[in-house]
């Protein structure tokens, strides 16, 4: 059952962008930096990268450059969630893929 | 064959003269702005053939898919055993519906195959000019947006 639950947890996380709520009280610039570093870290440690993460980080940066701190923060937070979800996917899938092999 | 759509095309043009003017036979099909840039099927036929009264006929055989694999490349085939003078393909929903006109001289079969672009689900109409009259067959081809862009 352990695998099943893990899988369930991952999907729940993917489904909700608010699932990972770290970094409250930080500036948008700091959050963007954190998301970028996190993205690079996950890319280095696993072969998992999501196209949407880079896109979201870019959008956050654009919002910040445009002087919209609140929007930038929101987007950077989303990017951080995506990074975390990617990390979780890599972890869960390192075992779960075996379930899909026909016997 | 979708009879309704043919009737619609015919209906739109009912105001036009039903008696066909004897047109001098063109030696060759040639592109004309008037026919190919026309916004409606009836206008296109009027400009291409000098007439647009059409009659559905099961002697006009139109082969086109029910659902297009890809709207950019839809195989369309028109064939007839009638003594054809010209064959045209109309894609009703395209901004300018007339896709092709082909001149069929004596000794050439009433047949043309090509591949067309279709922007959306619409009727494809095959037109065969025989004995100075226009005969048609129509068919709806569904164009969908695929799920796998790749």
């Amino acid at each position, binding site marked *: 059952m352990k695998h099943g639950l893990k899988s369930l947890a991952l999907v729940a996380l993917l489904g909700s962008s608010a699932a990972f709520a770290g970094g409250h009280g930080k500036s948008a610039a700091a959050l963007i930096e954190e998301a970028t570093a996190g993205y690079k870290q996950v890319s280095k440690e696993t072969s998992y990268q999501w196209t949407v993460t880079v896109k979201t980080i870019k959008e956050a940066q654009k919002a910040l450059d445009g002087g919209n701190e609140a929007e930038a923060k929101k987007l950077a937070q989303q990017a951080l969630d995506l990074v975390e979800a990617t990390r979780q996917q890599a972890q869960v899938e390192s075992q779960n893929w075996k379930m899909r092999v026909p016997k | 064959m979708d009879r309704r759509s043919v009737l619609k095309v015919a209906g739109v043009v009912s105001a036009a003269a039903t008696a066909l003017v004897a047109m001098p036979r063109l*030696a*060759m*099909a*040639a*592109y*004309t702005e008037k026919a*190919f840039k026309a916004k409606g099927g009836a206008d296109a036929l009027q400009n291409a053939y000098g007439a647009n009264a059409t009659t559905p006929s099961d002697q006009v055989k139109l082969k086109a898919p029910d659902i297009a694999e890809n709207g*950019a*490349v*839809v195989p369309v085939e028109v064939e007839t055993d009638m003594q054809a003078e010209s064959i045209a393909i109309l*894609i009703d929903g*395209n901004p*300018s519906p*007339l*896709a*092709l*006109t*082909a*001149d*069929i*001289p004596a*000794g*050439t*079969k009433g*047949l*043309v*195959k*090509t*591949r*067309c*672009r*279709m922007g959306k689900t619409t009727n494809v109409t095959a037109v065969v000019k025989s004995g100075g009259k226009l005969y048609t067959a129509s068919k709806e081809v569904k164009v969908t947006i695929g799920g796998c862009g790749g």
Partner: protein
Amino acid sequence: MSSIRIKAKERKGEVDVKCLMKHDMETGLRKDKSGKKIPEHWIQDVTAESNGKVVFSCAFNTSISKDPYLAFAFSGKKGDTLKISWKDNTGATDSAETQIK
């Protein structure tokens, strides 16, 4: 090399012709990477002659697919020549000739 590929085969006095023309057939609706509209550019007229006589001719709109395909059939025999030529909206032309097999 010509942009036109022709396959012409005779069977029982009828010549089946299949032909593919390399041409972008730009509709005028597409945009390039910088967002600029690519001007329309398409084959307007195609003519097929066998032994010097026109056996088929047709006119295209921009709604004919890229690298247009055309198939038709006419009465003829092996060894006859078949010449297919096109002209596009810029006035450019091309042609190819083959022997009917």
